[in-house]
């Protein structure tokens, strides 16, 4: 009986795939009238299911509605997984770097007292994180400086350029933002 149970499963799998039964299955059916009857029923059912597929008529306006919604847009550009992760890590790092000095009240860098400059710096760094030039999670500091240059202002994030922020934060390093004097 257990054998019949497993063989019926295999018979069903063959019917689902639309392939003929193997010799072993056929020989079992020759000796087992119950499985032969079961197979006959299942084969007939599979045939009836395949023969007539019900198909609802889609409304005639649906196609036009779809195409109107799509309009003149284009497929969205592909974002590769490594770019996505690099962007996510970089954005998280930038947010962490900005959040910690703010929570420290700017005591270590004296920037909190300058008011508008601090806000400008925050927005610029966030701008850098979404820039297409901002592609590498490990070189985000250099990228941030590079993006900021067209704005004709320079600043340095962390004194050690290229330091991996996550590693620094894990080591207990408190990042600071220093605004150098202009030339």
């Amino acid at each position, binding site marked *: 009986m257990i054998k019949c149970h497993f063989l*019926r*499963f295999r018979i*069903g*799998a063959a*019917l*689902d*795939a639309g392939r003929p039964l193997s010799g072993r299955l056929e020989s079992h059916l020759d000796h087992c009238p119950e499985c032969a009857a079961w197979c006959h*029923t*299942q084969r007939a*059912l*599979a045939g*009836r*299911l*395949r*023969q*007539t*597929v*019900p*198909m*609802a*008529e*889609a*409304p005639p306006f*649906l*196609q*036009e*509605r*779809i*195409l*109107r*919604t*799509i*309009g*003149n*847009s*284009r*497929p*969205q*550009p*592909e974002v590769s997984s490594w770019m996505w992760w690099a962007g996510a890590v970089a954005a998280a790092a930038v947010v962490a770097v900005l959040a910690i000095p703010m929570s420290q009240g700017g005591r270590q860098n004296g920037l909190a007292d300058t008011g508008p400059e601090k806000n400008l710096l925050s927005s610029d760094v966030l701008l850098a994180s979404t820039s297409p030039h901002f592609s590498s999670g490990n070189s985000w500091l250099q990228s941030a400086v590079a993006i900021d240059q067209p704005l004709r202002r320079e600043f340095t994030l962390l004194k050690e350029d290229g330091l991996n922020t996550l590693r620094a934060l894990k080591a207990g390093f408190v990042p600071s933002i220093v605004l150098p004097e202009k030339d």
Partner: protein
Amino acid sequence: MTALTLPMEIPSAADPAAVAAAGGSEVAALVERARLGDPAAFAAVVAQFEKRTFHFVLGMVGNSHDAEDITQETFVKTWQALRRYRPQHSFCTWLFTIARRTALNHLRARRPTEELKDHDISVEENPGDTTADRDDASAIWATARRLPPDQYDALRLCYGEGFAVKEVARIMNSNSIRVRVLLHRARRRMAEWLKPESPEPRTAPRS
């Protein structure tokens, strides 16, 4: 916004198996053009798969109004994500995966408001079919709709849409073994229900 026109030479997909077998390379060429941003090529893709997608979704959600919205959303999502499509996989499988997920999201957000009406479904007619044949076919798929949702989806994708078990597994975000089990249970239950003396089956609601 410019209205798009459909190329006249694109056939509609009345026969899923025929489209799957004969239209594979044609569909691939259309999809490739659509990936490059050609809306006319995508319009042809919509023309080919709209009917199948609509009916598959209708079987899942149970009313034609929701099925229209979900079909539209499916094709919009497909268009937007077209550059993520990998040509080594079947486009049809990918499309149905999106359609099923969109329908499931819809069902999670809103319970079905209306039972599937008999007039929503019409049986595809073959010239040689008698009225009795059509009634039989209508009855068999009406019975299938009373299966648990996963079993119905597997049965519909395998027997109705002609997908292989592996493709059904991909669409259902599952594995081949589970799909085989679903199909086995669905057939076994159907055979019991379709016996002349069998009791009226109870409908399994989608949760």
